């Protein structure tokens, strides 16, 4: 063994104590060793105890092996200049042999040994292995300055002591590892508790770091968060590394943490000072940091940060156990960082949306699913005039509606609980004023569960008034055109008429000099007239005012008529007309005038641009391949000048004859083709052209055989049964018997029938099948007919579908008052009553009223009120009495209560309606409750017809449906015009 220095004559002292002394010293040593709590203490007590005077060993050293196999000096006596934690590598020194073979080695004369590290005390030396379960864990070195100083009895004593010390070390280590495991558990529990607390992230991470440092038994450490934006690590926690490194930023690959951030693997740097990867940020801590261990913080494979621990203890080396400990903390820290990031992100998004909502110019209000307001934005406050305090918690529909708009608003809200509702309507401000709003209700779903509604209101008052202004301006334009047309035609009438007359006279009198000039006046007049007509047609089309006048006519006859008309024109240019009509053309249903005008236009054009050539008209009828539509094709071809592609492209635009000069050369207004094309489109057809410059042109018109039957230019809907069906009717009724009856009626008429047993199912079916008409029962469990109606009318896609309401009051025959002229609700408003009656008052004075009312006081009130107005009043207490009175005299008007004993109002109505004499008498129903204002407005406006259930005949129902379907067709063709 190398001994750095020794002043005293270190040798095995001969001053040995008595046997009793020696035994007492060994016993003390044993007791001390057993009481030691860690291996360092064991080593210290081992050398201290052997140094006892009674034993007489002066130079002692206790080495323990570390993970690398180095002997590390843990305690020594008599080696004053040997450094603490002196390290001897394997293969060096005399004690190496004992480590290798786990046996005691005695070197009597140290001086001669090659492996002896020279020292001043070179005499003799005993190396005793320390081992646990046959595994060498260290070596006890005992020296003497004298050669040959040790005897076999020394060997026995030292071996026994070494074994005893080994046991003590083993026990101490066990103790330490158990304590350490307990510490780990506690540290982890503490950390987890931290994570669930709401501490600030940096404080939380600082706590995690400090706990890791403590547990690892190291000097200090650092923790960094990865900033994805800048791709840097930012130190957020720093503990005893020689400076406060908080806030330091490390690039990827920079320093220990930067390295693990790239490799995603932990890293141990035993000698930081010698490590080439050091970051410049840490040049000032090189002296305090000896070794570094770093690990990345990962969530899955994503980097969120890095953790490092450092120590300055040269005796301490980072090993697998340290790494294991560090890795216990790394995930915890990673989770803390991730949680914080998610929280911040959620917070940021929340703030973002709040900012959007707060600054939105659109009024936004959030509701619970029951319609109660949970919040609204400043735009809502501004639009409706309510503050948060006034609004939150209230029912939105109650807050901003009038009695008239309430039902409609409720329907929107109920729709918005499951799907987006849109519409335009009137809403009320806090100050009572009304405004027009465009509104949208959107269901708010969290994890697939509807938790509320968001409603948006956009003030369209100005927009609507602008629209109304535009519409009225447009109407003014139409009126102007109509007037202009009249004003222009009147003088033209004279010009054309008189020139025509003069021309005839001139021809008769032989004044040939004037004939040509008069002909010019006449033809110019005619041209001007044609121009006026075309401009008028076109403006009507543009304004959507052009209507289709549908009739069924024979195609062949119409073609012949057109040919007769156009023949003189054809002859003018020396052309020859060929007409080919396929056999069996039959009749078509279309606007004959427009078909005629289109054909005339095409034929006269063909002739105009053809000189001494052939104009051909082919007419055929066939089913199209797609959708199988029955269609006519009119093809007009000529051998004329034709057109270039560029000319063809602009052909159907208004005022665009091939060249401006063509107008002068060929005449015409240049509007004919534009008008013809629009006519064809209105009828659901097309007009196309093929032409080659100099070779002639072919115009092809395709028109459906029955206009209005299939909607124009729409993709054919799997046209199987729909094509044959005269229409599609949705029957909504809760009673199966009614549904099956309706089905039988309607099927026989060739209608397609869909059924729904509840209001909700009915709405779904309506949206899916888009029926042409709906029959709707009023009394249904759950969603009743009025609600269904409101929902239908609120849906822009369905609001045009005619709805036929079927209703009963009870299950008897008493139908809801179909025959009634007016409805009044009790209590009766005098002014209203007066107004209503005035409408029915016969011309001249007087007039008799029959009041049918069972309540004497109500009856009396009516009698006095009406009497004051100059009516003659008769009173009946029930329907039967009233009928008896009517046998005597027919009243001018009847006021009828619905709920009466004996014969109620409904029965009475159906009775008098069956009397020819009395069927025209106006009846005003006075009802206590049945009809709310909203219901009445529905009856007057939106309900197409009310029929009495149980009382309507099959024919009535069918004719009603047929007429509704007819209306619908007319509507769809009208809307087609506006295109």
């Amino acid at each position: 063994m190398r001994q750095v220095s020794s002043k005293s004559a270190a040798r095995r002292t001969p001053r040995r104590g008595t046997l009793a002394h020696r035994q007492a010293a060994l016993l003390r040593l044993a007791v001390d060793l057993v009481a030691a709590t860690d291996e360092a203490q064991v080593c210290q007590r081992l050398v201290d105890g052997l140094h006892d005077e009674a034993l007489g060993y002066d130079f002692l050293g206790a080495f323990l092996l570390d993970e690398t196999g180095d002997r590390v000096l843990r305690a020594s006596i008599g080696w004053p200049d040997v450094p603490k934690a002196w390290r001897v590598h394997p293969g060096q020194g005399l004690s190496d042999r004992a480590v290798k073979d786990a046996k005691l080695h005695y070197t009597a004369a140290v001086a001669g040994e090659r492996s002896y590290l020279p020292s001043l005390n070179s005499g003799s030396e005993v190396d005793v292995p320390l081992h646990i379960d046959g595994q060498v864990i260290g070596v006890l070195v005992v020296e003497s300055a004298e050669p040959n100083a040790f005897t076999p009895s020394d060997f026995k004593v030292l071996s026994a002591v070494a074994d005893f010390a080994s046991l003590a070390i083993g026990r101490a280590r066990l103790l330490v590892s158990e304590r350490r495991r307990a510490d780990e558990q506690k540290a982890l529990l503490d950390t987890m508790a931290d994570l669930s607390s709401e501490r600030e992230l940096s404080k939380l991470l600082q706590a995690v770091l400090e706990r890791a440092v403590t547990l690892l038994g190291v000097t200090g450490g650092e923790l960094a968060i990865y900033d994805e934006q800048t791709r840097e690590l930012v130190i957020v926690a720093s503990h005893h590394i020689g400076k406060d490194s908080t806030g330091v930023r490390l690039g990827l690959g920079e320093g220990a943490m930067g390295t693990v951030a790239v490799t995603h693997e932990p890293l141990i740097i035993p000698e930081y000072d010698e490590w080439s990867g050091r970051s410049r940020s840490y040049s000032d801590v090189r002296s305090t940091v000896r070794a570094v261990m770093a690990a990345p913080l990962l969530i899955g494979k994503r980097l969120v940060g890095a953790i490092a621990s450092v120590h300055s203890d040269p005796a301490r080396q980072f090993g697998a156990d340290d790494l294991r400990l560090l890795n216990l903390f790394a995930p915890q820290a990673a989770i803390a960082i991730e949680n914080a990031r998610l929280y911040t992100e959620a917070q940021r998004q929340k703030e973002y949306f709040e900012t959007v909502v707060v600054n939105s110019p659109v009024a936004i209000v959030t509701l619970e699913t029951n319609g109660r307001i949970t919040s609204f934005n400043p735009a809502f406050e501004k639009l409706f005039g309510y503050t948060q305090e006034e609004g939150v918690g209230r029912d939105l529909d109650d807050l901003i509606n009038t009695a008239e708009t309430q039902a409609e608003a409720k329907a929107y809200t109920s729709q918005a609980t499951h799907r987006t509702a849109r519409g335009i309507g009137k809403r009320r401000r806090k100050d009572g004023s009304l405004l027009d709003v465009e509104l949208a209700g959107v269901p708010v779903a969290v994890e697939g569960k509807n938790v509320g509604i968001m409603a948006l209101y956009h003030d369209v008052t100005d927009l609507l008034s602008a629209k109304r202004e535009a519409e009225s301006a447009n109407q003014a334009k139409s009126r102007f055109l109509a007037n202009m047309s009249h004003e222009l035609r009147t003088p033209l009438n004279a010009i054309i008429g008189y020139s025509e007359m003069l021309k005839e006279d001139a021809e008769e009198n032989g004044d040939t000099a004037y004939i040509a000039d008069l002909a010019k006046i006449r033809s110019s007049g005619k041209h001007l007239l044609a121009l006026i007509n075309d401009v008028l047609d076109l403006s009507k089309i543009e304004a959507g005012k052009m209507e289709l006048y549908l009739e069924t006519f024979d195609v062949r006859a119409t073609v012949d008529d057109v040919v007769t008309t156009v023949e003189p024109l054809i002859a003018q240019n020396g052309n020859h007309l060929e007409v080919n009509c396929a056999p069996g053309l039959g009749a078509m249903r279309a606007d004959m005038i427009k078909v005629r005008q289109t054909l005339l236009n095409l034929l006269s054009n063909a002739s105009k641009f053809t000189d001494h050539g052939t104009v051909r008209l082919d007419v055929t009828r066939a089913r199209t391949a797609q959708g199988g539509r029955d269609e006519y094709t009119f093809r007009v071809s000529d051998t004329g000048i034709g057109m270039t592609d560029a000319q063809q492209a602009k052909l159907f635009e208004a005022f665009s004859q091939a060249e401006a000069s063509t107008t002068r050369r060929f005449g015409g207004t240049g509007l004919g083709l534009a008008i013809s094309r629009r006519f064809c489109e209105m009828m659901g057809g097309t007009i196309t052209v093929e032409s080659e410059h100099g070779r002639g042109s072919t115009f092809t018109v395709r028109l459906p055989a029955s206009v209005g039957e299939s909607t124009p230019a729409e993709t054919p809907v799997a046209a199987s049964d729909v094509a044959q069906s005269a229409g599609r009717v949705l029957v909504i009724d809760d009673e199966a018997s009614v549904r099956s009856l309706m089905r039988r009626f309607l099927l026989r008429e060739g209608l397609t029938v869909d059924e729904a047993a509840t209001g909700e199912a009915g709405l779904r079916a309506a949206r899916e099948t888009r029926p042409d008409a709906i029959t709707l029962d009023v009394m249904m469990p759950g969603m009743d007919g009025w609600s269904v109606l409101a929902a239908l009318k609120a849906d822009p896609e369905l609001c045009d579908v005619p709805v036929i309401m079927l209703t009963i009051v009870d299950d008897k025959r008493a139908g809801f008052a179909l025959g009634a002229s007016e409805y009044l609700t009790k209590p009766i408003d005098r002014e209203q009553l007066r107004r209503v009656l005035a409408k029915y008052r016969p011309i001249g004075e007087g007039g008799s009223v029959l009041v049918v009312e069972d309540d004497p006081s109500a009856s009396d009130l009516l009698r006095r009120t009406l009497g004051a107005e100059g009516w003659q009043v008769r009173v009946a207490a029930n329907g039967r009495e009233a009928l008896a009175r009517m046998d005597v005299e027919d009243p001018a008007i009847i006021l009828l209560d619905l709920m009466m004993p004996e014969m109620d109002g409904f029965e009475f109505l159906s009775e008098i309606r069956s009397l020819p004499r009395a069927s025209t008498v106006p009846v005003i129903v006075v009802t206590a409750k049945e009809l709310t204002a909203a219901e009445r407005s529905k009856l007057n406006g939106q309900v197409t017809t009310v029929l009495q259930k149980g009382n309507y005949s099959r024919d009535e129902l069918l004719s009603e449906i047929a007429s509704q379907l007819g209306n619908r067709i007319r509507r769809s063709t009208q809307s087609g015009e506006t295109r």
Partner: protein
Amino acid sequence: MSRVLLVEDNEMNRDMLSRRLRKKGFEVDMALDGAQGVEMARSGAYDIVLMDMSLPVIDGWEATRQLRAAPETQTIPIIALTAHAMSGDRDKAMDAGCSDYDTKPVEIDRLLLKMNTLLGVA
């Protein structure tokens, strides 16, 4: 010879149409407004009425309705003549009870064809 009642307030139109019709061999009497037209037609002296629609006193539609309501003129052919070419004019005239409809300026051959058809001549 067929007797025609021409109800027309515009002097030029009246003059022109009457001269041309006379030339074609019709006997033509003229009324200057709707009321006069109804009164003259009720005399039973005419085979056909040509009725302008925009007339003073009562307009052509109302005059037609009144003629149709009276037993003596219930079946007399009435051709509406109107400069209005706006939508619905044809329907409006037919609804009022006119037998046919033509627009002004009159195309004499077309008008003659319609008249002759209604008079059962052609």
